[in-house]
């Protein structure tokens, strides 16, 4: 075996081993690598009241209630729902049917008290007229977001 051949195999072997190591590390840190928990995750593994975490999903249609400086809405992943309470400024993209990530904790009643709310944008880009005509034609479904939340 020539030295060049040996170096070639060495690089392949090194990359394979490193790739495997990285995969194992990333898999074991799975829990801390996810940015938010969905309502279904919560139903599976409930969080104790008072523990800080991020809750993510869609803002349920028709659930937003503004009460002075307080805003209440429901985060859903189409399977489970979590009610959320928040005082403060909400981002421009926050609207019903859109993705949202809230930071905060559950209270004793199971209501998520958010200290910060971030809007999550989806991967769809289109001009307003196209969105309008899609809605009219009845082809409107934020499908990708639902799949993601699940």
């Amino acid at each position: 075996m020539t030295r060049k051949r040996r170096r070639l195999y060495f690089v392949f072997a090194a990359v394979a081993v490193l790739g495997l190591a990285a995969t194992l590390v990333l898999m074991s840190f799975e829990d801390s690598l996810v940015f938010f928990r969905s309502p279904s995750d919560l139903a599976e593994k409930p969080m104790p009241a008072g523990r800080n975490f991020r809750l993510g999903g869609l803002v349920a249609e028709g659930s937003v209630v503004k009460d002075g400086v307080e805003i209440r809405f429901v985060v859903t992943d189409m399977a489970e729902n979590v009610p959320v309470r928040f005082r403060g400024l909400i981002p421009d993209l926050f609207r019903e049917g859109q993705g949202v990530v809230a930071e905060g904790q559950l209270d004793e009643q199971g209501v998520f008290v958010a200290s910060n709310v971030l809007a999550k944008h989806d991967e769809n880009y289109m001009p307003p007229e196209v969105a309008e005509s899609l809605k009219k034609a009845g082809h409107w479904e934020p499908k990708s977001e639902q799949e993601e939340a699940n």
Partner: protein
Amino acid sequence: MAVDLHRFANPARFMRLTDAIFPWSLGLTVLLLASGLYYALIASPQDYQQGETVRIMFVHVPAAWMALSVYSMMAISAAVGWIWKHPVADLSAKAAAPAGACFCFLALVTGALWGQPMWGTYWVWDARLTSMLILFFLYLGYMAIWEAFDDQSKAAKAAAILVIIGAINIPVIKFSVDWWNTLHQPASVATMEGPKIHSSILTPLLLMAGAYTALFVTIFIIRVKAEILDRRLRIMRMNQVQEKGLKG
């Protein structure tokens, strides 16, 4: 394959080839950048959700693509340079690094500027943003290693090890949005179901991606040529010193 590589490993032939490409890549950069910016900033429609803010995407997304592809090219070059001992391959990786770092920085900054109005925050530590920041540090580390050694062949070897190990980060960045839930949105263009961007917004995006690629090729040619000439100069100086030593 090895035969082809040997052809380009000859610096003189490599420089003749790049000299022939240079005017084309320069012309293409000007043409694509002008038309890309016109479509991106003036002629394309607003987004139905983001409004005018969508225009940041035309600067941000191609910069992120370039940051990933330039790094991949550097890792392959560095591996070829180390395995087959082709100095031009090492110098190619070295020459590409600052441009790649700039693309990475541009992606991080424009992403933060987009995040503030859209998400409501400049920065979050989600998997996509964090892995992209790590890529930026890998670029800086790679450039620092080249500066840290006087012996260029040792520097090439150490830098190659770093850039190859760091290449693990590239698939992590690409698939971070699929493997874990992140605040960053998933891929819009390279998806199994085809692009999720309307053609009126996709066209300027692809034009800008072409412009960035041509710009990179142009900068790369200038820089790799400078590196090759710099190397020749070093060798000539060393020979001079040796001759003097022999005479004295």
